[in-house]
Every structure is written in structure tokens, then in C-alpha cells.
């Protein structure tokens, strides 16, 4: 039986059980599909990640209204 989409995703992440992964050795269709999936997942994993700039928290807190014990909003 061919691998399902979920199984191919698991394989590309190295999480597919050996019994099902063996199917790839005997099915060129599934192997090609899995290889295409792996390439996309690799590219997604390499996307750059960004941290906010140093002043981010200050800019946020400058616009947060904090309720005083009296119920009034202060800066």
C-alpha cells in the first residue's frame, strides 16, 4: 500500500516507522513523492528567523493602558 500524505510527512521528518519506511525501497512512485516533499520541508526549515528590534518592548509599552487601583487608566 502506498504511503499516505501524513506518512510521507513523517518520513521527511525522520519519524516514520521502519516497517512503513521500507515501502520506499520498493516503490519508486512513493520515493519520488517523498523526495519532493523532503525538499520543500528542507527549504521551509531554512527560512530566516528574526528577533524584534531593541526598542520593540518600549514601543509596545508606551501604548499599553494600565488600569490603576482606582480604575483609572494611566500610561
Amino acid at each position, binding site marked *: 500500500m502506498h504511503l499516505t500524505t501524513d506518512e510521507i510527512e513523517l518520513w521527511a521528518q525522520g519519524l516514520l516507522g521502519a516497517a512503513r519506511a521500507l515501502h520506499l525501497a520498493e516503490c519508486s512512485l512513493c520515493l519520488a513523492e517523498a523526495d519532493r516533499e523532503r525538499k*520543500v520541508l528542507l*527549504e521551509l526549515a531554512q*527560512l530566516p528567523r528574526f528577533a524584534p528590534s531593541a526598542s520593540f518592548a518600549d514601543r509596545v509599552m508606551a501604548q499599553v493602558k494600565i488600569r490603576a487601583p482606582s480604575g483609572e487608566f494611566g500610561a
Partner: protein
Amino acid sequence: MVRDRALAEDLAQETFIKVLNGITSYKPEFKFSSWIFKIANNAAIDHIRRRSLDTLSLDGAPDADTPEAMKATAIQLDAKGETPLQELENRELGSAIERAIGRLRPEYRACILLRHVEGYSYEEIAAALALPLGTVKTYIHRARNELRGYLEDRRAETGGRDGP
């Protein structure tokens, strides 16, 4: 989501201001991070829709559930009316995968980034975006298919110079 670091930070700022000013509306039965993400996602999608950024999908409407419905609602890239200059600029902005993500529908984009960049489970994505689990799986599957198609087209065009 928005393919622009400064804009992403502006939207993140807007998100955290909403979160902190609206903290009393948070319901503890939901994960706090999911609540924040939902607000952030809404801000990003609102922005994308306002600005009509590159949000075209090749697969038709997200809720199209038959091949006929998908075909009927699919939008051809040619319909975007991209000028040669815009096309050139688009090609020069970011990596092939970033440009490919930029072409996804916002709904697909949010799901694929949460799944494969942030490492959320399908269940967590469903909770964060208030979508049925099956819909999340469908969106991610379609998004990956679109990304694969786009990246393979790009590789064919560039003879493999545009990425792994």
C-alpha cells in the same frame, strides 16, 4: 506572513498592544500563546487583504472540496496583471521559498508557517486559528503542493541555480 521585516514588526507591535490592553478578555481555557497567535494572524491577514499583496492560490478557494470546485475558483497567475518590472522585483525579493510562500493564500500561509517553521502540531494550529482539524490538514497539504510546484518551476527556469 507579510514578507517585510519592518511591517512584520509593526504588526507584532499592534498585536502585543491589543493583547496587553485586552488582557481581561483572555479566556484561560485556551493556550495563551494560541490567543496571541490568533490576534497576530488576524492582524496579518487583515493587512494582506487591505494591501492585496501576493496572495493568489493556484488551487482555488480554500473551501473548494471537489476538483470541479477547485478548478472553477482557481485564479490564474496571468490574471494578476503583473508588469514585467513587478515580476522582476518579485523575483529579486527574498529566496525562492519566501517568494513561493508569498504567493499562497493567507490562510494557507499561516498554516504552513505554523506547522513547518514554528513546529506547531495540527491540533495546535486548529486551536490557534479556530479551524476544524481537517481544514488545517487540507490547507497544509494544498500549501505544500503549491510550494512544490512553484519551486520545481523555478528550478526548471533557473536550471537549478535557485536553491537546493
